[in-house]
C-alpha cells in the first residue's frame, strides 16, 4: 500500500514538471512580447508585416543566413555593416541613414524570445486580434485560450499534488494512530473545508489576490491612456497633419522653446483660414467657430472692430448670413428656403453651444478645448527639452497624431513609461558642446567602452529632474 502511494506520487511529479516545461516555451514568447514593446515597437510595425521606420520583421529569421549573424545584427547593426556582411549591407543601403539602435545587452535567450514572438505574431499563432477574416479571429481566440488553459492545467496539477500530499499526511497519521492503538477518525470533506488550516489558507489567498488587484488598479488611477474626448471644434489632425502635412510645430509653436507645447490661438488658425473658409468635411460648420471666436467676417474679409463688446444678436446675424450664403451656393438655390433656414439655425446653435458654457456666456473669446494630456501638478515636464535638445519626434509620445481624426492620448503618461524611455534613449551628445562637461562619458565612448550615453546615465532617473 505504501509503495503504491509512492509510485502514484512519482508519477504526479513527472506530470507536474511536464506541464511546467510545456509552459516554459510559452513564457518565452510572452517575454518576447514585452521585449518587442520596449525595444522594437518604436521602429518596427506591430503586425510584423508592414514596414515602418524599420523593415517588417515577419520572416526576418529566414532572410538571414544564420542565427548568429542575425543575433549580432540585433546587438550591433553598425558593426555588422562595417564588417561587410552582405545582408547587413543590403539592409543599410535600403534604409540609410536610419540606423538600427544597438542592443548590446540583449542575451541569446532574450533574442530567442523576441524571435519567437515575432514569428508567432507573423504566422498568426500569437499576437493581436485581427479585424478581418472570421477564421483568423477564431484561431487567435483559440491560441489565447490555449495559453490560459496551460495555466489552468498547471494550477490544477498543483492542486492535485496538494491534495495527494494531504492524503499522504492523513494516511500516515492514520497509520501512526492505528499503530499506537488509538481510535482514528477520518475527516469528512466538510470538516476539511471548515478546518482552521483550510479557512486561513483561503483568507490568506484572498488577501493576497485582493491586495494585488488593489495595487495594480490604484496605480492606474488617474491615468487616461486612450482618452479621446469630443472637442468644441471637430478639428482633424488627420486632415491637417496627415493630408496637408502641416508641421506639428507650426501650430504648437511652444514645443521647441517652452515647457508647454501650446494650444494654438485662433489667430494662428486664421493664418490659413482667412483663405480656406470651408472645410472638406464639415463645410462651414466648424471653421465658422474660429471666425465667431476671433470676430472675422468671412463675407467682407475683415475683422469686426470692438468685437469683445459686439452684441450676440449682431454676431448671429453675421455668421448666419455667411452660412446661409454658402447653403444657397452649395445647393444652387436662388434664395434661402425653409429647409435651408432650419439648417442655418441648427448650425448656428451648434456653434453657440460649442463656444459657450456655464462660465463663458459669450460666443466671442477663446475656444475652450478639452485638455487631453494631463500631468499631475507635481510633475515638471518641458517640451523644449525633448523636442529641441533631445530631438525627439512628437509621435514618440503622442502616437500617430497625423492619422487621428479625433486626438486620443496614445501613451499612458505614467512614470514607468517616462522612466523606461529615459533608460533607453541616447542623449544627443554629438554637436552639443553643453555635454562637454561629461568628459568621462566622452572618453569612454571614444575608447569603445560604451556605445551610447542614455538619459539615465546623466541623471535622467533622479527624482528632482521632474519633481520639484
Amino acid at each position, binding site marked *: 500500500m505504501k509503495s503504491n502511494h509512492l509510485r502514484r506520487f512519482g508519477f504526479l511529479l513527472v506530470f507536474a514538471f511536464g506541464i511546467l516545461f510545456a509552459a516554459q516555451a510559452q513564457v518565452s514568447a510572452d517575454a518576447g512580447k514585452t521585449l518587442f514593446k520596449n525595444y522594437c515597437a518604436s521602429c518596427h510595425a506591430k503586425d510584423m508585416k508592414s514596414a515602418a521606420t524599420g523593415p517588417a520583421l515577419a520572416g526576418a529569421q529566414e532572410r538571414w543566413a544564420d542565427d548568429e549573424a542575425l543575433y549580432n545584427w540585433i546587438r550591433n547593426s553598425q558593426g555588422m555593416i562595417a564588417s561587410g556582411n552582405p545582408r547587413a549591407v543590403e539592409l543599410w543601403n535600403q534604409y540609410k541613414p536610419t540606423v538600427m539602435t544597438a542592443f548590446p545587452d540583449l542575451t541569446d535567450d532574450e533574442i530567442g524570445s523576441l524571435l519567437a514572438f515575432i514569428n508567432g505574431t507573423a504566422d498568426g499563432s500569437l499576437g493581436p486580434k485581427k479585424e478581418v477574416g472570421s477564421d483568423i479571429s477564431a484561431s487567435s481566440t483559440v491560441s489565447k485560450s490555449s495559453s490560459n488553459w496551460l495555466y489552468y492545467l498547471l494550477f490544477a496539477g498543483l492542486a492535485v499534488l496538494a491534495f495527494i500530499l494531504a492524503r499522504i499526511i492523513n494516511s500516515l497519521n492514520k497509520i501512526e494512530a492505528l499503530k499506537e492503538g488509538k481510535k482514528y477518525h477520518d475527516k469528512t470533506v466538510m470538516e476539511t473545508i471548515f478546518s482552521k488550516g483550510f479557512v486561513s489558507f483561503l483568507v490568506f489567498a484572498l488577501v493576497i489576490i485582493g491586495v494585488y488587484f488593489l495595487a495594480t488598479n490604484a496605480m492606474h488611477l488617474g491615468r487616461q491612456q486612450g482618452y479621446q474626448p469630443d472637442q468644441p471644434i471637430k478639428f482633424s489632425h488627420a486632415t491637417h497633419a496627415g493630408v496637408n502635412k502641416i508641421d506639428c510645430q507650426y501650430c504648437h509653436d511652444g514645443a521647441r522653446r517652452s515647457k508647454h507645447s501650446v*494650444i494654438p490661438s485662433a489667430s494662428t488658425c486664421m493664418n490659413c483660414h482667412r483663405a480656406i473658409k470651408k472645410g472638406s468635411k464639415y463645410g462651414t460648420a466648424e471653421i465658422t467657430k474660429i471666425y465667431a*471666436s476671433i470676430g472675422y467676417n468671412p463675407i467682407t474679409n475683415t475683422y469686426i472692430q470692438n468685437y469683445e463688446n459686439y452684441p450676440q444678436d449682431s454676431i448671429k446675424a453675421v455668421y448666419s448670413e455667411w452660412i446661409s450664403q454658402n447653403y444657397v451656393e452649395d445647393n444652387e438655390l436662388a434664395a434661402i428656403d425653409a429647409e435651408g433656414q432650419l439648417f442655418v439655425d441648427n448650425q448656428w446653435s451648434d456653434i453657440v453651444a460649442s463656444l459657450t458654457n456655464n462660465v463663458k456666456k459669450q460666443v466671442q473669446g477663446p475656444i475652450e478645448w478639452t*485638455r487631453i494630456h494631463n500631468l499631475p501638478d507635481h510633475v*515638471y515636464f518641458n517640451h523644449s527639452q525633448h523636442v*529641441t*535638445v533631445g530631438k525627439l519626434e512628437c509621435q514618440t509620445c503622442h502616437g500617430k497624431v497625423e492619422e487621428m481624426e479625433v486626438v486620443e492620448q496614445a501613451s499612458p503618461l505614467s512614470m514607468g513609461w517616462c522612466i523606461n524611455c529615459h533608460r533607453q534613449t541616447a542623449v544627443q551628445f554629438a554637436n552639443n558642446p553643453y555635454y562637454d*562637461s561629461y568628459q568621462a562619458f566622452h572618453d569612454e565612448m571614444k575608447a569603445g567602452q560604451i556605445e551610447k550615453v542614455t538619459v539615465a546615465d546623466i541623471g535622467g532617473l*533622479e527624482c*528632482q529632474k521632474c519633481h*520639484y
Partner: protein
Amino acid sequence: MKNNKNIWIGEKDLTQQEEFLNELDQEKSLMNLESTADSLPSMKGNRRDFLKVMGFGIGAATIAAGCDIPVKRAIPYVVKPDTIVPGVANYYASTYVNGGDYCSVLVKTREGRPIKIEGNISSNVTKGGTSARTQASVLSLYDTNRYREPQKSNEGVFGSMTWSELDKMVMDALSSSASIKLLSNTIMSPMTFKAIEDFKAKYPNVELVSYDPVSFHGALTANEKSFGERVMPDYRFDKADYIVSFGADFLGTWLSPIEFAKDYASKRVMKNSKNAKMSRHVQVESHMSMTGSNADNRILVKPSEQGAAIAQLYNSVVGGSAPTSGLNEKAKEALTKVAQQLKQNAGKSIVVSASNNVDEQLMVNAINQALSNYGNTMMMASASLQRTGDDAKLMSLIKEMNAGSVSTLVVLDCNPAYDCAYSSDFVKGLSKVKTKVAVSYSANETSVLCDLVAPKHHYLESWGDAMPKKGSYSLIQPTIAPLFSTRQTEETLLRWAGVDMSSDEQPMYSYLTNNWKNSLFASQSKYLSFDNFINNTLHDGVFMSAPGSELSYSEAGINFSNVTKPANSELEVSFFETIAQGNGEYSNNPWLMEMSDPVARTSWGNYLAIPVHFDGYNKMVGLNDLDDGDLVNITINGKELTVAVVKQFGQMPGTVALALGYGRTEAGDCGTGIGVDVNPFTNQNGNTSYYSADVQLGSSLGKEKHYSCVQYHHTYGVKALDNDGNMVNADEQALGMAYGQAGYQGALTDRSVVYTTNLKDLGEEVEKVQEKRKDAQFLNSKQIYRGFDAKYENGHHWGMHVDLNACIGCGACTVACMAENNVPVVGKKEVSRHHEMAWLRIDRYFYGELENPNTVYHPMMCQHCDNAPCENVCPVNATSHSTEGLNQMTYNRCVGTRYCANNCPYKVRRFNWLDYTTADIFPVNQPTLNGEKTPFGADDLTRMVLNPDVTVRVRGVIEKCSFCVQRLQEGKLTAKKEGRKLRDADVKSACQTACPTGAITFGDFNNKGDVLDTKLQSDLNYIALEEINVRSSVTYTIKVNNRDESITA
C-alpha cells in the same frame, strides 16, 4: 567681561540652561504634538469619533476613486501676443518705489502675471541688489485687502461708488475750496511733480506737504543751512575707510540701504588673508541695530546722550566747545580715540547720524567738512533725493487744519494718522477739514477717516519714473493690467485737474513720455530719436544723466543750546525702524511680518529689547529679572503699554528699545493689532525724536502666549558642559547620558560652525582653521566608503559659497526664497511652536565681549551634503542624492516620518505640520495668520503670486532648500538649447540674486575658473561641520572684524 572661547547664539546657549538643551531640537520633542492635540478640536476625540472619521474617510476615498477624472480645459489666446510664450518667463525693468524707498528692479512675469522681483544690475544706485521690502512687494500686488473700487464714507461706513461719481464729487469740492492741501510722503518722481504742477494750474490755491514716516527733517534742514538745498548727500561707502555712525541704520533702513550695503561690503570683503584690508566701522548707539551689529566697535551711549556724543566728536575733530556734559566717560574716551583715527582718514571717512536735531546734524556736517569728506566720500552733486519730507510744513498744516482753514485735504498714499509724531493732532484737525480725500492702496488709519477714497494702482500696474539721486533716473512700467478698478495717483490728479484723457488708451504712458521728451531727451546726446531713447531706457529701466553741480559748504551757526542734553533718568527707551515693517508701511505683508528681525530674531510683533548682565555666577540676568517672552508693563511719557520682552545682548544698560511700525489698528488682515504703537511717543515738544527718557518698567506679568522669536529654533553645533564642566557638544552630551561616556567621538567636541577673528590676527586664525580642516579631511578620508567623490567630477556638481564678511544679515535672501519657492507663511502661533517654514534662515551668533559683543550672520540653508545623513534614514527614499550633488526632496514620496529632520546636523529641514498652503479641504488643518476669515493663501488672488514651476507642498511632508533646482534646470536647458557649455552665470539661486552685497555665490564646482571656483581659492574658506564628514556643498568664509581693542565702550 570677555568671552574669548566661543561664539554664542544667545543667553540660554551661553549659560547652558537646561530647558534650552532639552529643547534644542523641537523635532525630537513631544511638545509639538501635545500642543497640537490641545489646540485642534478634531484631535480631541473618543473611539467612536475615530471610527466615524475612519469610516467616512474610507467611504470618501472609495467614492472619490470611483469618480471620473474631472475634465480639464486648455484655453488658448484668441490673438496671441508675440512677446508671450506660455511657460517662458518675461522680465521687465521697472522701479520699486514706496515713499522714499527705492530699488531698480526686474519683474519676472509668467503668463502675464508678476511673480518675482529681481535686482537690476544696470542701475548705478542699487546695482542689482534688492531688499526684503522690495522682494515682498510683489505679494502686496495680490493683497486681498486692497481697495477694489472708489469708496464713499457714510458716517464711517464705506460703500463703493463709480469713478465718475467720485471725480464729480471731488472736482465740485476742489473748485469751491479756498485752501487745498496735498499731503504725501517723499516724492521722487519727476512725473508726479509734473502732475501736481498741472493740478496746481487748475487749482492755484494748492499746497503740497511732504513728510517721511521716519523723519529726516533734522538732517535735511541742517543740509539746507550748510548747502542751501534740502537734500541728503550721496554717501559713497565704497570709498570710506573709516565710518562713524551715530545711530544711523544705514545698512538696514536709513536713506538708501541697498546702495549703501553694496558699497559698504566692497570695503569689508577680502580675496584671501594676504594683504587683507578692510574699513573700520564704529557705531554709536544704545540699541543694537542691524548696522550696529555689523560694526567693528560699538560705543554705547543712551539715546539722550547722542547729542553730547556728536558734540564730543565735534570738539575733538573740528575743535570747539560744544557741551558734552553728561556723556558717559567711556564713550568720551572712546570718541576721542575715534576722532584721532578719523583725522588720519581724512577724505576717506564718513560720519553719519540719524539724529533728527538740526544742530546735532550741523555738527556732523562740520565734522565731515573738517575731514574733507564732501566731494570725496559724500557727494553733493549727485545728492540723494530719497528723503525730502518737511516736518515744519506738516506741523503748520496740522495747525491750519485745527484752525479750520483747510477746506480740502487730499492724502496721497500716506498714513499720517498713524505714522507721524503728531498723529493725534492730525486726527483732531482732520475732523475740521470739509472734504477729505484719500488716494490710498488699502485701508489705513487715515483713509478710514476720510470721506472719499480713490484707490490707487500697485507700482506693478503703473507708469512712472523716479529720481533717487540727482542725475539718476529710472522708469516704472506696468507688468500687469490693473487687477481692480483702480487708478494711479498721477492720473487721478490729472483727471481732477480736468485733463481730458478719454481718447488715449494709455494716457499715463503718453504723459510720462511727453514729460521725458521735453526734459531728459533734450538734455542727452546718445540717442537721436525719441522712440529709440525711450524704448532703450524702458528696456534698461534706468537712465543716467550728468549730475548737478557740486554744492559748496558754508559755515552755519550752530546753536549748542539746542543740542540734546543727556537726561538724568534711570531708564531710557529708543524707538527704531525695522527692516521688515518700516514705520508700519509694510504691516499687511505676511512675508515681511513673518520675516524675523535680523538682530532680535523676533517676528509677528515688536518686542521690548532689554539689556542683560552677567550675575557673576552662571546666568545672564535681564533687566528687572525679566526673561524672554515675559509680558511687562512699560510706562512711556505717562502712558502704559503691555509688551513682551526679548533679552538683547549689546543693549546698553539703562536703556530699552521698541520698534516702530507695529500696533496698527487699520492695516488689513495681517497687520492689524500686531504689537504696540509707539509713534505717539516720538513727539518731543514739537520735534520728532525717536526716544524717550520718561520710562518706567514694571516686572514680569507672566509669559506671552505665543512668543515668536526664532533665535533658539533649529540650532546646531551648540556646546554644552559635561558633568566635569568640560565643553562638549550638546548632542553628544545626550549621547553621554545614554552610554556613560560623553565626548567619545573626540573630533566632534569642537565643532566648526563659525570662525571669527580680528583682522590683525587673521593670518594666525587662517592657519588654525586650515590645520583643523586638514585634520578633519584626514579623518574623513579614513572611511570605508571611499572613492565616491570621483563620481561628481563628471557633469555638474553644484555648490555654493557664502562670504560671511559680505553678509550683513538684511534678510533679502530669506524673503526672496519664500517668493521663489512658494514657502508658506505660518503665523505667530505656529512660529512660537518652532514651525516657521523658511528654507533659508540667517543664524545670528555673538562673540567677543559679553556686554558689547560682535555679531556674525550665518545664512544657513540645506548644505546638500554629498554624504547626507538625512538620505539614509528615509524609509521611503523620499530624499535621495543626484549625480549633480543635489540632495533631492521628493514631496510625493514623503510620508512624514521626520527622521531626516532629526538626522540633519544643520537643522534645515522643515515639516508641514499643518496645511499652511491651504491646499486640502479640511479647514481645521488650515491655520490663520491673524484670525482672518479666509486663511492666507486660500483665495485665488493671493495664489497668483505662486511660482508655477515649484510644487506647492501639502500637509505632512518635509521640505527644504533645493538650491533652486528649478533655476538650475532652466539654466541647463538654456545652455543645451544654445549648444554651449554651462556658465555659472546661467544658474543663480534666488538668494544670490536678491543679495545686495553679493555674499552668496552659486555655481558648478566642475566649472574650473568660473565664478564659484574663483571664490573657492580663498584661504579664508571653511565648511561648517566639516569634521562630521557629511561633505557639505556650501563653503563659508572666516568672519573678520576690524575691531580696535583699545576702544572700550
